[in-house]
């Protein structure tokens, strides 16, 4: 069958018009992604199962052109709470929160870097309601720029949680992981080192790896923690230089370091505890070791200082929900081999069975404001002296 050119042109024009109408229609007629549901969300049992929830939610999301995102009203129940989150368990938690409280909530899920970049780009007219990511230094940076609402109500926390609440209550911890947890290849390294000095031994030459703090957000607190533990920036730099001289491999992310480990290119990697414990649970032969004075790496929530009061109130509700037993259940089941492997800061909540008791670990906290201010300089130094 052959088309006459005019017919073909007409068909092309019709296709174009149809698709354009479709585009407009798609953005104006759908309903809220996480609008309150009739039944509460059932906890996902696997990480990929949780993405199915996303897919389902995504298929019915709302976008109203010509309207401020905060002003999007969900069935007359108040303004939409826009959650920016990098947590593996955020999809099911947001959905469950909306179902439990009736607050219309929408989610933008991404890695920490792109989320912070989005917030930066939105500065002229912020759209986000709350930010939920790992690492107190990121929140300290936002707080110092005046982007966070101070004086948040902090629900009751356990002792570990209380330690990481900032004095101005500009963010609230929701769980704890550890930076620079050692994960090792038991085949290559049957007797892993028990001290930081042990990583400098000749037997580990060329066999240790870690992430680049300039790329991997959760690695900066680890580097800052090493410096604090060693007695200051200079002493920390000296230690890291020795590690480099001993053949330290620097990768960009946890995944890259784990790949070096599983393929035998290194014998021990220093990564975030949730990634380490998850990898050890799924990959035979990998084991986790906790060196002394590990740096506490809290996940936390901060609220947009410029958000309307009603949105801030909804964000406060979200914080309370997340630290409630129902919220903790969502967090602990949403990403079972990843971010769900955290130590709870909510009182009377036990960590998942894969984790040792928090009290059995030797840990330290860093001041996010002090060390956050040094982040650019230290990352630059690391890039020029350790990564290269």
């Amino acid at each position, binding site marked *: *069958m052959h088309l006459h*050119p005019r017919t*073909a042109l007409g068909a092309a024009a019709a296709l*174009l018009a149809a*698709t*354009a109408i479709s*585009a*407009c229609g*798609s*953005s104006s007629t759908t309903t*809220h*992604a*996480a609008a309150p549901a009739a039944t509460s969300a059932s906890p996902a049992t696997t*990480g*990929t*199962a949780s*993405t*199915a929830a*996303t*897919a*389902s*939610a*995504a*298929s019915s999301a709302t*976008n109203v*052109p*010509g*309207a*401020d995102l905060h002003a999007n009203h969900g069935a007359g129940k108040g303004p*939409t709470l826009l959650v920016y989150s*990098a947590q593996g368990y955020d999809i099911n938690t947001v959905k469950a929160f909306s179902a439990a409280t009736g607050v219309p909530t*929408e*989610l933008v*899920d*991404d890695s920490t*870097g*792109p989320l*912070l*970049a*989005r917030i*930066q780009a939105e*500065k*002229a007219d912020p759209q986000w309601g709350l930010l939920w990511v790992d690492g107190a*230094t*990121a929140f300290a*940076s936002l707080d110092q720029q005046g982007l966070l609402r101070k004086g948040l109500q902090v629900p009751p926390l356990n002792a570990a949680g209380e330690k990481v609440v900032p004095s101005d209550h500009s963010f609230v911890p929701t769980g704890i992981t550890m930076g620079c947890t050692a994960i090792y290849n038991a*085949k290559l390294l049957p007797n892993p080192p028990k001290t930081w000095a042990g990583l400098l031994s000749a037997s580990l030459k060329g066999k240790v790896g870690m992430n680049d703090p300039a*790329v991997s*957000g959760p690695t900066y607190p680890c580097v800052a923690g090493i410096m604090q533990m060693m007695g200051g920036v200079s002493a920390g730099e000296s230690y890291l230089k020795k590690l480099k001289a001993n053949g330290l491999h620097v990768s*960009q992310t946890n*995944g890259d370091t784990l790949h070096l480990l599983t*393929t*035998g*290119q290194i014998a021990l990697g220093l990564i975030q505890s949730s990634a380490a414990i998850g990898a050890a649970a799924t*990959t*035979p*032969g990998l084991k986790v070791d906790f060196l002394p004075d590990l740096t506490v790496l809290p996940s936390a929530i901060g609220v947009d200082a410029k958000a309307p009061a009603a949105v801030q109130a909804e964000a406060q509700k979200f914080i309370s929900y997340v630290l409630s037993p129902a919220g903790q259940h969502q967090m602990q089941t949403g990403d079972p081999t*990843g971010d769900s492997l955290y130590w709870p800061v909510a009182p009377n909540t036990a960590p998942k069975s894969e984790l040792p008791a928090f009290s059995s670990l030797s840990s330290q906290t860093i001041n996010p404001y002090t060390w956050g201010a040094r*982040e650019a300089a230290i990352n630059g130094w690391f890039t020029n002296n350790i*990564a290269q």
Partner: protein
Amino acid sequence: MSVLTPARRRVGSLRIPRVRPRLGLSTVMFTVLAVLVIVPIGAFLLVSVSPRLFVQGHQWFTLEYFGQAFSGASLASLSRTALVGVGSALLAVTCGLPLALLVHRTNVIGRRLWSVGIWALLLSPSYLVAIGWERLFEPAGVLDHAGPLLTSVATFGRGPLYGPVGIILVDGLKGVPFAYLAVSAALPGLGSSFEHAARAHGAGRLGALRVVLPIIAPAIWTALAIVFAETISDYGVATTLGYDSQYFLATYALYNAVYSIPLSFPLAASIGCTLVGLAGIALFAQRRALNGRAYRVLSGRTRPCSRHQFRPLGQVVAVGVVVVFFLIALGVPIVGAVSASLLTNDGSIFGGSGLTLHYYAEVLRDGALTAPLLYSLKLSLICAAVVMVLSVPVARLLTRQNTGPVGRVLDLVLLGAVALPSLVMAAGYILIYNLPLMHSLGLALYGTTFLLTLAYIAGALPNNSRILVGPLAQLDDGLLTSARTHGASGPVAWARVALPVLSRYVVWVWLYCFAGTFFELPISEFLYPPGKFPLSVMINKELSNYHYSEGSAMEVLSVLGALVIVGVVLALYRLLAPRGWRQVGAAQS
């Protein structure tokens, strides 16, 4: 702005020009490009000197960030980027030109298969290609486990791979489809008559080649420019092989400025300006090389050329060359995909490693891919349709003679847009379309599917228009004039004369735009509406939540799905397009 153009009125048997106002093509297209491309990119780049304009700092005017971009590590990364861009462009054209000639002008066996191979290479994300190479050559990698001989190969090749040579190799191979498409688009003008004329006047094979190759010079330069611009804006190779080689490129520095604390949009914008500057240099070189010459060889007198018939030995050599090329260009990324998605335990050394389809089954079973895939599919179809229509007039503007400084600026803007990572476009869209002014004007588009679609179109239009520059540059205006002389109006003349000539390349534009949009990440990340996950964002979420195998399986399934659509569209074109359309430029067997 309106342009006065002559129309015609009939007086007796004479046609007398009548002047009436008409909105010129240039005006319309400049307006479209301004809204879609120039203003958002310009806004972001403006932040480099005036951060306060968009609340990105306290200075109204500063050159501090340009100082940073032109010093130390940033300057070094810029020079590395230029080197990689030039090397990759040369490599891509060196491979793409003979490949296009073999497929379109010879009877080499498996021509359709090789065409599919080119599309597969085009669809392969650059980071996957780079990872494939690393998986082969890394210490304890695939080659190290494949016997002493291949271990020696890995040991020998590892040094060059982790450095500029390897990066140019990977970027160059990834650029081959661009070169192939650009050159293929020009081949209709390369009729056998030119070669025969040269031979008749005593030229040998080399002499005939010297006559013939300049005819497709615009396409070759277009290919060089596109591959150069695509390479210097590529992030996939920069963040994998580039980082692992500690050979930092400008795009890596730009992304770091945007994504790492402390975020610095002004520094990223300054680095972006340097990339536009590099594109400008490439454009200047292209213009100097072509020296304003016209290459309009595709006219009513163009005759189909014949395919070169290989003898058996020649056939074996030709097929061997093509097979080796695809083994290297496609086989390696396939290794990357296999090692990432088909091996249990990430191919660990613990003895538990083996082939499995578990991750594919899991992805298909829980349906995680369905909604994002359909969402991205819909937007890709829309974007491809719009870009297909817009790219023709834009390319027409680019190929017009005597456009003066405006044309040159347009050329620079479009190539500059290709040379900039799409992250710049995305950030620019937020800066402009999230301004309170836009909200008060009732244009609060940020956070909507509509704005995401606009950004996709803006991101795809510049490089897709360039694909059409080659064939349009060869289209003799005499063809259109003849049609007008015979009474056809402008649009009808275009539909009856130019469209048949361009139809194949317009379909290619649709396919390329579709594929590019389907997997686009930076624009999607910045602009996707809350709750509506595009495919690339969903895959990225899987990967960053440590579900590497599931994420890779999603990626492979998506590439396969996109390939099916590409195949269907090509088949439909073959089935539905008039035979005459398909035979324009086709060689006779």
